[in-house]
């Protein structure tokens, strides 16, 4: 078996090299001096921290970093909470409108986001949240919910339902979701 695998390693190593090359090339650019054109071999030219020094010295970079950190954290917390509970309900409950919701989620992925940006822009303006962290977070958190909820639903489908059913029977109810599944996630 091991000898038969040597060509497999060869192929995998080749594909991995092609896959990693662009990443390394960009890393080489980032560590270059910005004047010498980059060569074929990434990181072969002299290393220089000038690029990073300039970046960290730029006041706008700090601000942008802070913005990214705040927005992505809040987005992740809100988005995952919404998506997980929605996905859970779609997976564990059978209710009127369930199929319609699932179909709607798939359909929403087909509409180009570029164009729903125009109505979103109006909505934010009307609520006075345009150009604020709150508005941006709201849009990021909710527009990602459909896809995440769908993925979470698939994941909840694979978990044993017996536990929840046992919990329900003994009166613990769906609070268990938060405590038990929360740990599994």
């Amino acid at each position, binding site marked *: *078996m*091991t000898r038969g*695998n040597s060509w*497999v390693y060869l*192929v*995998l190593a080749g*594909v*991995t090299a092609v*896959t990693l090359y*662009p*990443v390394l*090339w*960009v890393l080489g650019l980032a560590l270059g001096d910005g*004047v010498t*054109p*980059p060569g*074929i071999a*990434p990181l072969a030219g002299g290393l220089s921290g000038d690029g990073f020094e300039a970046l960290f010295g730029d006041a*706008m970079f700090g601000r942008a970093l802070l913005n990214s950190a705040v927005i992505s954290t809040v987005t992740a917390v809100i988005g995952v909470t*919404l*998506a997980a*509970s*929605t996905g*859970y*309900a*779609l997976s564990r*409950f059978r209710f*009127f409108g369930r199929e319609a*919701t699932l179909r*709607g*989620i*798939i359909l*929403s992925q*087909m*509409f*180009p*986001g*570029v*164009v*729903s*940006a*125009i*109505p*979103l*822009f109006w*909505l934010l*303006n009307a609520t*006075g949240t*345009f*150009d604020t962290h709150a508005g941006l977070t*709201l849009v990021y*958190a*909710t*527009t990602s*919910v*459909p896809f995440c*909820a769908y993925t979470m639903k698939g994941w909840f489908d694979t978990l044993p339902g017996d536990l929840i059913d046992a919990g329900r029977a003994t009166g613990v*109810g*769906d609070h268990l*979701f938060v405590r038990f599944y929360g740990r599994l996630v």
Partner: protein
Amino acid sequence: VPWLAAVFLLAAPEPLVLWHAWRGAEAEALQRVVADSPVPIRAVAMPFEGYSEKLSAALTYGAGPDLFIYPHERLGQWVQEGRLAELEAPLQALDKPAAAAFVAGGKRYGLPLASKGLLLFHNRALAADPAADLWPAAPQAKPLLLQDLNSYYGAFPWVAAFGARPFDADGKPALDSPGHRLGMAKLSALSEAGVVAKGLDGAQATAAFLRGDAPFLIDGPWRFKQLQETFADLGVHPLPKVAGQRLRPMLTVDGVFVASGGKRAADAARVAAYLASDASAETRSRVGRQLVPNSAVTARLSDDRPQLAAMAAALRHGLPAPARPEMRSVWGPAKDAVDAVLRRGEDPAEAFAEAGQRLASLLAPLPPASDPTPWLFVGTALLLGLGWRIATEARRRLPGKGARGLGLAGFIGPGLTAMLLLVAVPILTGFGMSLFAHGPGGWHFVGLANYTAIGSAKGLGLTHPMSFWFTLVVTVVWTVLNLVAHVGIGLGLALLLHRKGLRLSPLFRVLLILPWAIPNYVTALAWRGLFDEHVGAINQIIAASGGEAVAWWDHGLTAFSANLCTNIWLGFPFMMVIALGALSSIPEPLIEAARIDGASAWQRLRFVILPQLMPAMMPAILLGTIWTFNAFNVIYLVSGGAPAHQTDILVSEAYRWAFEAQGRYGYASAYSVLIFGLLLVFSRFTDRTRQAV
């Protein structure tokens, strides 16, 4: 004492807000000026990209700044929309073209701060004096002149020398004119002879000049500081002549505007006058190295700043950029014509005739308004039908409520509300918008006119790269090739990684998922760099193996291949992960049984593994198709649709109609609805095949 200070701070008026997009020395100078303002101001530096869109949107909704700094070229549009407050004539003497650029209909709407335009920089170590005339062009081994010629702005001086203007005296678009043809023909000949370097962008031209590759560089005053750090004795001249005609740069003047309708308009006007004053101009000139239109300041500073005076003198040959609202639509078609001539050697006459035709289609009048009454009837009937359907279904299927129902509502309520409000409503609004037309004058109802215009590829012909049908073919080919590669590579790798006894398999899995883990706009930009004609790794590899460098963005097929490479690289890990998951769920005894029955490796794959894989792969393939069909980031960032929209797909074309062409939101929405319809049909089709399998 501290609390006294606090009370004082609370009582002080809120500072006025000033938006600008200046950087470096210019921003530093502005901060100094702002610190001494008679009325407190808070200067906010906006990101340069998207500044104009953000400003326009903020002004429309009254959420903008009190004052802002912007080039004069949007004046016409903003005056037309009533966004600007009228200002009094300045007290100090100003250069005439700069001051006149802010007057419309006899009224003044802004005050000039700094002039910008192209001029000639000169490395004295390489050439004694600027050539008197670049014509006749003797072939050169090394270029004499470096310039970023990737825009109409860059090419404008060359055509303006021969009398070309974007609009004629009557204000009609005039791209298809003798001046454009003649100027581009001369520029193209100079480029072919190697006098003017080919295919450089701004950063590359500057880098080449700094390396001493050529004695002359055409660039703007904003480059001065960077160049002077390397060449203390930098020469500054007006643009050179070609065949006896002086090149004339397009002049833009940064000015300060006051937004209309502000509560403190008088204060804002005082600040504007202060920013344009001689005192402010002196600081901006000394610290920010700006070319200020204040004649007294220029005269005073010219002794110890000869190069600044030379730059100001060079720009006297400039032509103010047109401030007409239609100018926004000129840049795209004109740039494509410039590219066609310089990069693909097309005939200037044909290229600019085509550009004129495209500009005409961008500026075509909106479809006439039509009567919405029948639509209201149809819409109401549809809504009633839907409501009735839901009500009957609900009565039939809704069991008794109770604690379960409450629990369910608690789980699904917040998510569903958010999805309805911020996903479903915008999409439905998008459907509605496709029945309206939006142009500079606002919205009006047009029924299906947008769809008929798209279907008939109005005024362009069905095979034109900007027509819906051409783009549809590109999009379908793009999606099919991508999906075949994604599934093929992903499945192949998964089968290899799934082999027994492969000890390094986890390591390879992690490394191969990497493209999926990096945000795709970062990798898209990286790939754009890899395919760069001059410094990109791909061309260097081709050169090292003895091939000729490829100008990837100049031809439809090569640009498309570059996009394809990028997206294949981005997309195969997803399919690989899905296939790996599905492979591990196939029961081992099944394959073992096939082996014992004497099935060959190929037969095991074809008749055992693949049929087991397909149910898991189908949803992933459907999702992958939708993503690839709408892969806006890759197209927009890698090829950008180059050359001349040939590699645009439907989504990026829809985006251009909405955001790059006079805000045709209705037209763009109709594009989106068509995209949605196509994907819906496709998903129905795959549903049926899946059920058949």
